[in-house]
């Protein structure tokens, strides 16, 4: 621990104070931008880190942005269409456990990042080729490869962030990275349909080739991310040489045998997580057609409203993060978030009210849930099991997403959107039930999940005494 602090100090020695003065360093020193000990340099690194994840987030929701086009050009029904999301998730059911391990023990952070970026690029290219060659199986395979890189790249991104910013602007950096991810998704939602129509006008007709080329152009963002990965690797190595900094580690230790020691509250948190997210992401994946058909939105407006969850999440995540940090009472916040999501889905399902209301509510509750739910894991497992718990949570979340994506497609094809919404409402209700149970269990066991921030401070204080 001490070593780590020292390392952080070494890396961050520049500090904002020094950089703020903006005065050139001692004669012979590097210009501020090239000096790893300066804030300006770290900002450059931050920029690279943000764009590192941009490509994968941009391309993750390509299918949602082009739902009608994919289904029409590839002549697939919704069930098969949703397989594109399912394949992404399948690869991550297993990989969540090993991403950290691969970075720490096998590749190292630099090569790990580059390799995962390559997977993302190759996956997207294969996905696009599947369109060009009119082979849907190739598209599915592309999404699988893309999935291998995507989620692990997020782990690598976090590791870089910790390595460069621990003890300083770390929370802000995490927040910015998350915002950048959401911006990637939003840009995708609003750009790809337009891009498709431009390519269509250029080629003279719609079809699988148009789709393939559009996706290939979308893949440029992945190349951008790969370039960021390469640049980061260079800068990180350079910083190591100059500042004698060690390569960043995720520090995750995964022991699958820990699973048997997981407590009931942790399992409830898993259930809340799975039941909640399966009612959000597959919905967004299928949302565009819903908004055009039910509410008569134009294609552009439907894209915009479908991405509003991400748009809201970008600025609100840090705000809610602060709110939850200051107030504590995580379970109550989670309860509010899940209940709001339930209301939002009910509005979408059973009313013809302007869907902007429901989607904004969904966006707010989604951001709030992320801020209140994930930190709870740390309260219910010992620190040495934290890696396993997080890995497991991501893994079953992906498993849930993979399965529910397929089921959602099937429901939509056979029973329509109303039934699909009812299904999502059932999922959220289950999630809500689990929150209430969690509250009761926590209460009965005298757990610390629902302490206010002040109570937590007091406990911390009494421990240190």
């Amino acid at each position, binding site marked *: 621990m001490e070593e780590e602090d020292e390392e952080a100090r070494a890396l961050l020695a520049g500090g904002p104070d020094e950089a703020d003065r903006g005065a050139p360093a001692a004669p012979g020193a590097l210009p501020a931008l090239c000096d790893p000990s300066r804030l300006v340099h770290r900002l450059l690194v931050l920029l690279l880190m943000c764009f590192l994840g941009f490509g994968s987030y941009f391309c993750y929701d390509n299918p949602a942005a082009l739902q*009608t086009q994919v*289904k*029409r050009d590839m*002549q*697939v*029904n*919704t069930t098969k269409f949703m397989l594109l999301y399912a394949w992404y998730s399948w690869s991550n059911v297993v990989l969540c456990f090993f991403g950290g391990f691969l970075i720490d023990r096998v590749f190292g952070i630099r090569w790990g990042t580059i390799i995962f970026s390559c997977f993302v690029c190759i996956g997207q290219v294969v996905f696009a080729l599947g369109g060009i060659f009119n082979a849907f199986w190739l598209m599915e395979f592309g999404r699988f490869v893309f999935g291998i890189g995507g989620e692990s790249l997020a782990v690598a991104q976090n590791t870089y962030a910790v390595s460069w910013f621990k003890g300083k602007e770390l929370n802000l950096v995490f927040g910015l990275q998350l915002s950048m991810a959401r911006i990637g998704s939003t840009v995708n939602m609003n750009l790809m349909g337009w891009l498709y129509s431009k390519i269509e*006008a250029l080629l003279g007709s*719609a079809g699988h080739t148009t789709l393939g080329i559009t996706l290939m152009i979308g893949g440029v963002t992945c190349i951008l991310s790969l370039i960021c990965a390469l640049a980061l690797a260079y800068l990180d190595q350079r910083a190591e040489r100059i500042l004698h900094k060690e390569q960043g580690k995720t520090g995750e230790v995964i022991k699958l045998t820990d699973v048997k020691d997981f407590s009931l509250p942790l399992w409830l948190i898993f259930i809340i997580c799975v039941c909640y997210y399966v009612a959000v992401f597959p919905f967004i994946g299928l949302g565009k*057609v*819903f908004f055009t*058909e*039910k509410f008569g939105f134009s294609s552009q407006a439907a894209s915009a409203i479908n991405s509003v969850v991400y748009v809201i999440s970008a600025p609100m995540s840090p705000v809610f993060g602060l709110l939850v940090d200051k107030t504590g009472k995580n379970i109550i916040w989670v*309860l509010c978030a899940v*209940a709001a999501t*339930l209301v939002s889905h*009910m509005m979408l*399902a*059973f*009313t*013809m009210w302007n869907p902007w209301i429901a989607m904004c509510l969904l966006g707010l509750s989604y951001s709030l849930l992320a801020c209140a739910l994930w930190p709870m894991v740390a309260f219910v497992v010992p620190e040495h099991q934290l890696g396993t718990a997080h890995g497991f949570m991501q893994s079953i979340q992906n498993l849930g997403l993979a399965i529910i994506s397929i089921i959602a497609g099937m429901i*939509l*094809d*056979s*029973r*329509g*959107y*109303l*039934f699909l919404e*009812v299904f999502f*409402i*059932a999922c*959220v*209700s289950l999630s*809500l*039930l689990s*929150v*209430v149970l969690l*509250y*009761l269990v926590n*209460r009965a066991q005298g757990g610390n999940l629902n302490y206010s921030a002040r109570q937590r401070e007091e406990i911390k204080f009494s421990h240190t005494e």
Partner: protein
Amino acid sequence: MRGSVERGWGWGHCASSPLLLWTLLLFAAPFGLLGEKTRQLSLEVIPNWLGPLQNLLHIRAVGTNSTLHYVWSSLGPLAVVMVATNTPHSTLSVNWSRLLSPEPDGGLMVLPKDSIQFSSALVFTRLLEFDSTNVSNTAAKPPGRPYPPYSLADFSWNNITDSLPATLSATFQGHPMNDPTRTFANGSLAFRVQAFSRSSRPAQPPRLLHTADTCQLEVALVGASPRGNHSLFGLEVATLGQGPDCPSMQEQHSIDDEYAPAVFQLDQLLWGSLPAGFAQWRPVAYSQKPGGRESALPCQASPLHPALAYSLPQSPIVRAFFGSQNNFCAFNLTFGASTGPGYWDQHYLSWNAPGCGLPSSGRLVPTSPGHHGSALGAPGLMLLGGGLVLLLHHRKYSEYQSIN
């Protein structure tokens, strides 16, 4: 019949030939005559003993105090005359020699005349075709460059007796009599008429609910060669106006797409200000059989406009029943858009219109949302309420303990 009779409705097998399908529900009965849960149905082909084969199908639906008559005929363009009477004993009288004469007025009558509460007619006048190449605006009207339409008055039709009467349905299958370009060499346009003795829902989408008061029409274009690579087909439909006004066209939006996934709209044609008769359909057609979401085509209806009688192919049965002094109104239905699936995929198009009927939107639009709402909303609210009660309860409890 160029093998089309043998093929019957088995268009699912002719994957190589084009097909288009659409369904319409028709209903003709004023208030007071409606709401019969079951009706005694009879389908009868009225033969013409005197002359050549002519299809005249009489569907008679008898309730306890009313009778509905639907008379379908392929004499001239395909047409249906809908009559609702307030007696269970009304009958249809056909005078073939007058009906086939140039002045058919009075050749078709429902007796007694004073029992008639409502009557109207629909005439399917033309099959339209548009070239939608280079049309990027899907809402464009017309949806492309029009080809010369096929007049349904110039079609030759099969003998519907062949398709009777196993399932209370009859199929009018036709192709142009003069077909120099042989576009219908392997194809046909079919109108399948079905009646129901009680309310139910068909197995095929769009699965509109029909009742004993309604009859359903399913239009299918199978195997005809389109005249362009991106041909869109349409139907011109004419109806009788009321005085100077046209019947009104309504779009109903509902939250329920259970029976026709992703179709939330119901189009209705309403005759008269008082709810009298209606035709309603989901604005969707299918380019494959069985229809599913992946083969769904949007179906757009143009507004109704007054049409000059001489500009439309005339239906002798309509003239025979209503006389020659009538205002006609017409509208076009277009199936598909320049993008998306189309007739060109499978050379198949089908459209459903559940029938002549009563504008009982409350009855025909399913009420399942209420069920879903109460089934799922209630537990959700209970959970929420229960959670809050428990929360408060626990708080009191803990305070009590702390005092001790």
